[in-house]
């Protein structure tokens, strides 16, 4: 080791506890993230505040060190996120020293679209998909990172790492560019864009093990705590504020719950759990017999709904 190296301490000089498996995943993701910075004029990283976004942001910080992130974060806010999530978002932007853009589809808001009265489908369509497309167009982004993983859902398992979007952000799953080796085709024309998925090959368990190993901050809602919930059709919905009306016969009760996946609070079901630490979460996951998307109300609306949404431009 040369002397110079020792004189220049880096951000976190500490032994890495990463397994070979996680190091492999980390290196692959870093390469993907760098590729975008090198090839695109206006990239952006979608930041959804969840555990996957947390890992993705952390990987980006590693990819460019000692430089700062050469692109901003974008959060598409539906105005129905858990309050804990918004707090976490603002702290994280601060901690990583990144520029954070928040976009709300004001038009949808003005039309009164919301998950309770409009239903999850329309709400997602207007406040997430439409909002996202508008945000990308408004800022003129030509590449957008998303934290989706192939193990989440079967149409995601079919998507490329560099996923081409024609003008209008549509995905044509039957006509994807062949993606051989690590030779990503980054070429696009005016109006077209690329969605990039650096976490494609990670599993939910990888995400948690990496979060633990790297000490990445996560929203407290992932940890079990007594919380006010209502039991609606077998799903435990947390009343994060009083916009969620109680239906006849429903009562709010305090239960010890946590979330496996976070979205709009009326659309994310909690699970009963005692997992209070990352170790607990990982142990619980290993024993679990259900998938993380089970608590997502929007996915069960109709068969193949994820693919349909993705074709329309959803992440």
């Amino acid at each position, binding site marked *: 080791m040369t002397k*110079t190296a020792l004189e220049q301490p880096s951000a976190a000089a500490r032994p890495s506890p990463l397994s070979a498996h996680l190091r*492999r995943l980390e290196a692959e993701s*870093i*390469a993907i993230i760098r590729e975008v910075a090198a090839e695109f004029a206006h990239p952006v990283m979608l930041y959804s505040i969840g555990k996957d976004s947390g890992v993705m942001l952390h990987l980006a910080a590693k990819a460019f060190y000692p430089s700062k992130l050469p692109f901003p974060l974008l959060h598409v806010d539906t105005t129905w996120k858990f309050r804990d999530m918004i707090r976490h978002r603002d702290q994280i932007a601060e901690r990583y020293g990144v520029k954070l853009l928040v976009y709300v589809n004001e038009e949808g808001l003005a039309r009164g679209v919301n998950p309770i009265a409009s239903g999850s489908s329309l709400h997602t369509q207007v406040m997430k998909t439409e909002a996202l497309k508008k945000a990308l167009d408004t800022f003129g982004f030509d590449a957008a990172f998303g934290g989706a993983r192939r193990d989440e859902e079967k149409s995601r398992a*079919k998507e490329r790492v560099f996923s081409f979007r024609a003008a209008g952000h549509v995905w044509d799953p039957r006509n994807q560019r*062949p993606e051989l080796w690590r030779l990503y*085709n980054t070429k696009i024309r005016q109006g077209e864009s690329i969605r990039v998925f650096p976490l494609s090959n990670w599993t939910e368990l990888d995400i948690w093990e990496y979060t633990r190993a790297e000490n990445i901050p996560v929203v407290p809602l992932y940890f079990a705590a007594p919380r006010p919930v209502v039991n609606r059709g077998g799903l435990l919905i947390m009343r994060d504020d009083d916009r969620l009306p109680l239906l006849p016969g429903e009562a709010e009760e305090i239960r010890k719950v946590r979330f496996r996946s976070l979205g709009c609070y009326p659309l994310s079901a909690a699970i009963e759990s005692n997992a209070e630490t990352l170790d607990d979460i990982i142990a619980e996951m290993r024993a679990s017999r259900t998938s993380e998307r089970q608590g997502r109300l929007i996915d069960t609306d109709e068969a193949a709904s994820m*693919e349909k949404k993705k074709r329309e431009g959803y992440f």
Partner: protein
Amino acid sequence: MRAATQEIPNASSKSLLRFLTCGSVDDGKSTLIGRLLYDTKLIFDDQLATLEKDSKKHGTTGEEIDFALLVDGLEAEREQGITIDVAYRFFTTDKRSFIVADTPGHEQYTRNMATGASNSDAAVILIDARKGVLTQTKRHSYICALLGIRHVVVAVNKIDLMGHSSQVFERIVEDYLAFAAALGFASITPIPISARYGDNVTVRSANMAWYDGPTLLDWLESVDVDTDLAAKPLRFPVQWVNRPNLDFRGFSGTLVSGAVRPGDKVVVASSAKESRVKRIVTYDGDLAEARAGEAVTLTLEDEIDIARGDVITLSTERPEVTDQFAAHVLWMADEAMLPERQYLMRIGCRYVPARITALKHKVDVNTLQHLAGKTLELNEIGFCNVSTATAVAIDPYVDNRDTGAFILIDRFTNATVGAGMIDFGLRRATNVHRQDLSVNKAARSRIKGHKPAVLWFTGLSGSGKSTIANIIEQKLNARGIHTYMLDGDNLRHGLNRDLGFTDADRVENIRRVGEVAKLFTDAGVVVLCSFISPFRAERRMVRELMAEGEFIEIFVDTPIEECMRRDPKGLYARAKEGKIKNFTGIDSPYEPPEQAEITVHSHHTGAEAAAARILDYLEASSVV
């Protein structure tokens, strides 16, 4: 500080195997993956419930669970009961982690199979026991071999439908081995299976006591595919130049092979510039060594010119740097590969214009015989000579998948149209140590991949010059050729605003057009000029401004009667009424060319045919 090689024992420090399933349509590839996921307990209860529901709706298996639906995740796939695009799934056992690519059997989707194979270390080639070895079995086997897969399983599937017969199995295996001997796999392991019922997939089949080899999972858990990439020569393609401030200039990238330590003497492959590694920087601290697969940032002792796409290597283990090499190319587009057409090549982190200069032969996937051919159609494989606009660092694909592979991109649509594997360099580039750094016409032309030229359209007003020129410009543009159109419309309104239509002004008009066209040719562009340009002398003057062979005079020979009949802008009518003075063909002469390179009669042939003739000429004289 951590040593790069140090490994903390952990539940997931298991090795990783990337493999694919391939073979002909309906041989049971997706069913097999679904079965593997199911038997290794990777399917959650809610997913299983969905699967049961889906099987009733889309299933191809009657009342039973259709495991293929676990992987065929697209609507179109479920409706048609086939796989269209590759699905990546992950599973782990106590011994290993797996990334499996389930690829489509349909010939139409071969490129998606190749996508899955390009990142795999092993292949499970399925054969339907009822059908035996088919063309697709052979095609996929050949592609696997070409893409560097060394170990394969031949899974003779649906053996349940053939009474679990050992004779059926043995006959198919014999057929397969007869074909595959020429492919050079390091190992071929035949296994009789039933994907649907799980025989010999994860557990030994009670129906086939005669079989004493491994189950598929046994094989997957134990096959040794490790190539020690770190022991190979250092290849570090620079991905991104890391420049947070004036005091730090690092080169970020992933070591695709080899290892590097601070103090090592390194060299930039294409420029032969040398320096030493100063630091290996990562977010987690500097490293004492970086090895293949690690994503790091290198800083060097000296300020040498390095950009994205350069390859850093050790002085002692340089790759070949060349602008011509031989390669196998798999064609993946509906539009055929045309020799001499310019494509954009991506190799490592570099994009470079490239042409296939010769198709040496095509490969018949059935017999592996060499066939003569001029073009490569969709899904065809050929052995080609490739020429790049600038020299690139290469290794033979068998030595290094990362520096020996490339893709070809259509310059107009940006589609990925070809995948290539380099066999060997054809000549060492002579310009590696080039001293003369000034950029001249030849250098500008070289990176465009075509010669400059002036296409000079002359003829009467209304003869169709612009119409033909427009068609040609569109076609050239679609082929990635850099063009510019000069005509009255864009010059008369600006540069030549001060000129009228007297003879003197006409001459000055053409002189200026000629000078502008000359600048464009100096920039390496194909310039299309549509001007009546009635006088021979001025046309000769322009011709003489250009280099030999660069000026191509195209006479659009439309009779004046026809032009007057067309009269698209009503000019002839006004000229005849005397409202326009000095109008060519009315009260000002037109001197037809005596030695035009091309004369077209578009009033007979139509503009498209005229344009086609001109394009033929450009090809024949190798301008494009």
